[in-house]
């Protein structure tokens, strides 16, 4: 399935008439409306907009962490609305990687174990070598057995990067990956992110409110109050 899509070079993500409405205290609240775009394989796209404009919500829908109220999302030719929770989990595991603003490492596991985690899920025998190679690649070969709480923010985010790339995902979602970091550390992370992205030919969807960062992507989608402008 994946190889076919790569050959056609068709859209890896297709979004059409996407809407998200939630029930708040003051009645229904529309967070996203009439969103539509296509992203092709290996493309890098920045989603920008002010805080509260709906960027994270869009990302969560694209990654199948949440379900849309209406409209359609196709990832790798698979309609998200046809998948249940577990189907979406399987899709995430096969094809999607994440990097978050607040790192989201398992506090119980050390750096190496955190990176091995997604591989172990599929029973990969080479989990350990692949994981330590990648940690080496992000410059953490000396910190393999450190727990997240023993690492600095920048180091934690590098572990998260290694974890995101270790499964060689088709698509990488990054939600404000530098939001919790100082600017020079943030710059290093971004540099690493784009390097790894290039090496792996990953489709990158980067959420940010930082114009400078967005410029490094091939395309920019700007949100304002839940709509594309």
């Amino acid at each position, binding site marked *: 399935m994946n190889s076919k899509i790569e050959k056609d070079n068709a859209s890896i993500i297709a979004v059409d008439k996407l809407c998200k409405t939630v029930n708040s205290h003051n009645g229904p609240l529309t967070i996203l409306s009439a969103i539509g775009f296509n992203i092709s394989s290996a493309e890098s796209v920045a989603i920008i907009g002010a805080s509260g404009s709906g960027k*994270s919500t869009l990302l969560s829908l694209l*990654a199948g962490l949440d379900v849309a109220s209406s409209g359609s999302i196709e990832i790798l030719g698979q309609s998200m609305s046809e998948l249940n929770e*577990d189907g979406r*989990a399987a899709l*995430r595991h*096969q094809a999607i990687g994440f990097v978050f603003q607040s790192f989201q490492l398992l506090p*119980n596991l050390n750096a190496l*174990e955190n990176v091995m*985690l997604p591989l*172990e899920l599929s029973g990969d025998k080479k989990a350990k070598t692949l994981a330590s190679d990648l940690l080496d690649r992000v410059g953490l070969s000396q910190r393999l057995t450190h727990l997240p709480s023993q690492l600095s923010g920048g180091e934690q985010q590098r572990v998260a990067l290694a974890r995101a790339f270790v499964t060689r995902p088709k698509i990488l979602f990054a939600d404000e990956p530098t939001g919790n970091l100082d600017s020079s550390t943030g710059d290093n992370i971004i540099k690493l992110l784009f390097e790894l992205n290039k090496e792996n030919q990953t489709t990158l969807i980067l959420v940010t409110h930082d114009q400078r960062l967005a410029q490094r992507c091939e395309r920019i989608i700007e949100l304002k109050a839940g709509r594309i402008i």
Partner: protein
Amino acid sequence: MNRLYLALRFLRRDSRSGELTLLMLALIIAVASSTAISLFADRINRTMNYQAAEFLAADLLLSSPEPIAYSILQQGNKLDLKQSQTTEFSSVLMENDEFLLVGVKAVSANYPLYGYLKIRQQSYTEEQTVYHGPKSGNVWVESHILSALKLKLGDQLRVGEKALHISQIVSYEPDKRGDLYSLSPRVMINSADLEATQVLQAGSHAHRFFQFAGSEENILTFKRGLEPQLTVSQRIMDVYEDRPKLGSALQKAERYLGLSSIVVILISGVAIAMATRRYSERHFNSTAILRCLGYKQNQVLQLFLWQFLLIGLIASTIGCAVGWISQEVLLHTLRELLPAKIAAPSILAVFFGMMMGIIVLFGFALPPLLRLKRVSPLRILRRDLVPLPSSAWLVYGLALVLLIFLISQYTDDLKLTLGIIGACALSLLIIAGLAYLLLTATRLLLAHVNLTWRFGLQDLSRNRRSNIVQVLAFSTTLLAIILSFTVRTDLINDWQQHLADEAPNHFALNVFDDQKEALQQELKQQGVKVSHFYPVVRGRLVAINTTPVQQIVTKESQGERAIHRDLSLTWAKAPAKDNKITAGLWPSQRKSHMVSIEQKLAKSLKVKLGDKLTFTIASQQVTAQVDSIRKVNWDTMKPNFYMMFSPGTIDQFAHTYITSFYLATEKKDVLNQLLKHYPAMTLLDVDLLLQQIKRILIQLTAAINYLLYFALLAGFLVLFAAVQTTLDSRIYTGVLMRTLGAKRSFLQKIQWIEFSVLGFIAGLLAVLMAQLAIYALYHFVLKMDFNINLTLSLLVPLASALFIGLAGFWGTRSVVNQSPMQVLREL
């Protein structure tokens, strides 16, 4: 495989960070206490079976006045049962111009099948333990036969027509019964010599006993086959179904032990549920990350179930080991009270302990764990997204099913079980309601107190929901402890009668009218305290109203035994001191031809007040009307009677007297003197039986104390589990307040105030519920007077405030000690 591996990883990390310590401890305590108690009870029980077998000198005993059919013995052979026979009768011996009524016992070669005899040569040489009776041609006698008949060892003694050689003094036989033949001094001969004595002619009065021993299964098969063949005068008794009861004390104690170990399990269960809740809340984030990485819901659940299965196995193993050790320690401390041969612990009990551990763990931990399944991966982006809690039905339903199962194990009575559960549910509701009111009431105080108190109190009314849960946990734990402590105290007090040093240990029977005064005098001179002398008339109950008893009494019913033999009837002006009138009246001036009947017999014979009972006494008929029903404590070693007539009803019949008294061991020689002065009198020494009851009660008291320790430990765990559930949010607010400039001492005081007040409320409610429960128990069940225990009512809330305040203070010390930086970073 992969998930198990990951589960192990998680487990290792979590246990290192102390996340699981509380959970494990709670489970260990639950398993340890139930294993210890079931092992202990099982061993004591089986030890008592051994002892019962010794008392019968057999597993099954058939008694019959006449020889039994040969086919019965053959049936025994077919089932591989070992057999022996004894024949007992009274006979008057005459030597050196002295007469003596003795109880002769002729024993077969295999006698005794269980137990041993003690024999000796001269008075003061060492006793010897043997496992057989005298050889043919020899006779063994009790020591005071020698003095009474002016004989010595080695002399000849004529039993009937046969002269036998006195070879040993016999001082102990396992199956000595408290009936007429055993009470007269013992003469033991070999049954091979029985015929030669020519004492037993056709129609002469003798008791024949046929002993059988074998496996439980074969014994019971044999019994089932035997029962339909029995004649009216034949009786069977076996160690499994008719074990001589050591009084109701034992039964009460067994129930109490069982129910108390459930209390321990329940308290531990509360701790487990609380600890698991915190555990699962602390794993929401990890679960969201796993879900984000592509874990399916069931895979997440499996991961945690594996962990808990491992926890359950590890903790149960440790718990079993601890239980085993404590039970060994318990038996070791009691070893001087126990028979030399104690039943081995059964491995099965350990297996059940393991099972119990897993069941208890999942019964209380599953609902909070299931919540993890519902964690949304979206939580990664939105921290406030908490999964719905498991439905209340599941949470309480599972624990409820578990409890019903456990309680019915010990009560064997569905109505009682449901009653207990219903009472528990009702108390929970009441406590929750009152806790709500009290917590709300603290708000009224806010306007009148200083800043520290205001900060300490305001969370109580603000986080009402979680505080009610905490109060519930604390006060049910306290309630359980108070109740089991109170019942324990009452049980032990109840037993003090047995344990009292001066409880009567001898009965004097067959005291004639004209000897009564003299005997009373003589005992008084010896400084012996005697209880009341009751007249005894032998008689048989033949009809109730106009119906013959045979038509009323079904076989197997309790009344059966009492009806097919002569009863000891008595009359008295006043009821015995420890008897309690449960129906009717016992006026100080009783009309003649009235009778007071014992409660259980009345129930079994369906006798009501006003019924007319007809007795046959010395071939005359006497009718009396039931004027009261009495509850009799058969456990006390005082003369007690099924029927107590009013004076002037049966006085005219020939009667003897019975009394009981206490005789210290060093005064035993008084007995010989008494027997010499009153040769016709029968003395019954119940010291051995008393000793045994005493021993068992001491064992049980020790076991009960053990349980209380376990319950207290479990209670402390609940305390810490409860403190921990709110620890995270406390740390967070604490850090924020410190960054805003609050002093550490200020924060410490706040914690101290909040927990103490919580503890005080919990203590107050626990005392209230406990007094209500005890009142209900005393008033409706035990029919005892109820007094409010004021000390307890004051002490418990104060102690609870102190301890819970301390535990909260100690448990939340990290709130004031952790560096704000570290906390903010870990968030």
